[in-house]
């Protein structure tokens, strides 16, 4: 039974919650508004809120002036590429751990997680050295591989928890009916596993999109994704707030939308099942 609550109380909590929500969201809202201002309106004193001549000039300026399209392309290729590669490696592993668990399955899972805890800075120089030695420094393939490796533990883990929820009896039934391993995977498991795989893909694209250690340090020009592109704005050139805002909005908008869809998966994916 729900606790009896008066409308007045509900209104009070609503106002408070909305106030906090808007406070948290405010920097994004402000960036959004600023991106439609002219540079001089962007720094007007006192600040201008909603009533100004909305303009799209910053968005066109950012796309024309710099290598934004290239950075966007790199971000897409790197985040999607590393996620697909990770899924290809992780699905078989998670499948076998969930359905054919051995004595050491738990240890393997925990060990995989522990590799995620390795601080990036501890392997920074060897990676730079290896990349130069292999001639792949500042290439998309390098970032696809590196981001796949740092997110692989999360991918395996998420898939494992999703696969675990598929009832084993269905598998046994299909085996009784004489299904071999291949058709078992293809016709029984895949349809049931697809939603879990989709959520995993979504969360990992977000994580890879926002990764800002390796993407900054392993790229210079050719493979630099949006994280590095935005970082190049840290040396300001005159009036640039509106353009910075436009570039920022373009970099975060797609992920913001994906993120809103993946709230629930976030808890599962980043707490490794420790919070339910």
């Amino acid at each position, binding site marked *: 039974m729900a*606790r009896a609550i008066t409308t007045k109380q509900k209104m009070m909590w609503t106002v408070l919650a909305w106030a906090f*929500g808007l406070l948290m*969201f405010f920097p994004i809202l402000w960036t959004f508004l600023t991106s439609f201002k002219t540079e001089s309106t962007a720094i007007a004193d006192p600040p201008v809120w909603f009533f100004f001549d909305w303009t799209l000039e910053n968005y066109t300026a950012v796309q024309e002036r710099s290598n934004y399209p290239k950075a966007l392309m790199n971000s897409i290729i790197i985040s999607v590429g590393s996620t697909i590669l990770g899924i290809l*490696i992780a699905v078989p592993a998670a499948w076998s751990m969930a359905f054919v668990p051995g004595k050491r399955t738990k240890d393997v899972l925990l060990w995989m997680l522990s590799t995620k805890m390795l601080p990036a800075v501890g392997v920074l120089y060897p990676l730079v050295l290896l990349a130069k030695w292999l001639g792949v420094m500042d290439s998309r393939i390098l970032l696809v591989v590196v981001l796949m490796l740092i997110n692989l533990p999360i991918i395996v883990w998420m898939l494992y928890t999703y696969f675990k929820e598929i009832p084993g009896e269905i598998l046994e039934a299909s085996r009784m009916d004489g299904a071999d391993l291949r058709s078992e995977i293809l016709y029984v498991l895949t349809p049931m596993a697809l939603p879990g795989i989709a959520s995993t893909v979504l969360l990992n694209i977000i994580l890879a999109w926002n990764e800002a250690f390796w993407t900054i340090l392993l790229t210079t020009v050719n493979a630099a994704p949006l994280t590095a592109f935005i970082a190049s704005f840290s040396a300001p050139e005159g009036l640039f707030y509106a353009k910075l805002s436009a570039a920022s909005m373009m*970099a975060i908008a797609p992920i913001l939308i994906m993120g809103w869809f993946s709230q629930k998966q976030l*808890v599962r994916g980043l707490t490794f099942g420790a919070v339910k």
Partner: protein
Amino acid sequence: MATAHSKSAARWMIAPAVFVLLVWMLVPLCMTLYFSFADYRPLRGTFEPWIGFDNYVRFFSSSAFLSAVGTTLWMVTGILSITIIGGVLMALLLDRPIFGQGIVRILVIAPFFVMPTVSALVWKNMFFNVDNGLFSYLFKGLGMQPYDFLSQAPLFSIVVIVAWQWLPFATLILLTAVQSLDSEQLEASEMDGAPALSRFRFIILPHLSRAITVVILIQTIFLLSIFAEIFVTTNGAFGTRTLTYLVYQRVLESQNVGLGSAGGIVAVILANIIAIFLMRIVGKNLDS
């Protein structure tokens, strides 16, 4: 039951994941370990493969190390306190029956999806900037002197930026935990006339303790490697050089690979100590 056939197939299916992670973990880590015992400065062409523990001694005894440890501790503790306290309050607030709960939730969670370089630059320029930042207008409007956040309180400023990014994470996880609370127990205590504060102290907080521990451990691991936020705001100046940043500077900026590698190994050991606790909790949950 699984057949012997499917068991051996299962081995082969795990193999690629285990193999790539093993290579990923071992090869660079062994190289770092190797360099940490060498005098390796590529810019000067120096390579002396074995100098014993000199790098570790130098790293530990340098004033930069101690101040980096201090900075790291302040930063992590500051962010953790804000996100945990704020997260518990937000989670309790969002758990209330309110109008437009879904939208408020979306507003609160949004900062987590903003890429670190964007949030750092937006805060740095549009909020903290002493000439044109929003805070300066606010201060002037209140009749106070504008305050140059990033040069006068750089550590605090970075704490604010990162806490803004991680508060949604804490809120989301704590909210999940709050929602699993047995509401009958709460109602019973309410009927018995327990005041709100003691309900929080004796029922809600104990229930949340595990989720809070998990949030602390996971955040600590991520917060120890904060990089982009420092990179685009202060670049490690004004006492904002954390351990991670110090190692980065030694390795890539001053190209003292030996010394930096020793620092890298120290960072790995520190992170592992925290990881052990996290693993224990996760492992226990696997059994149940």
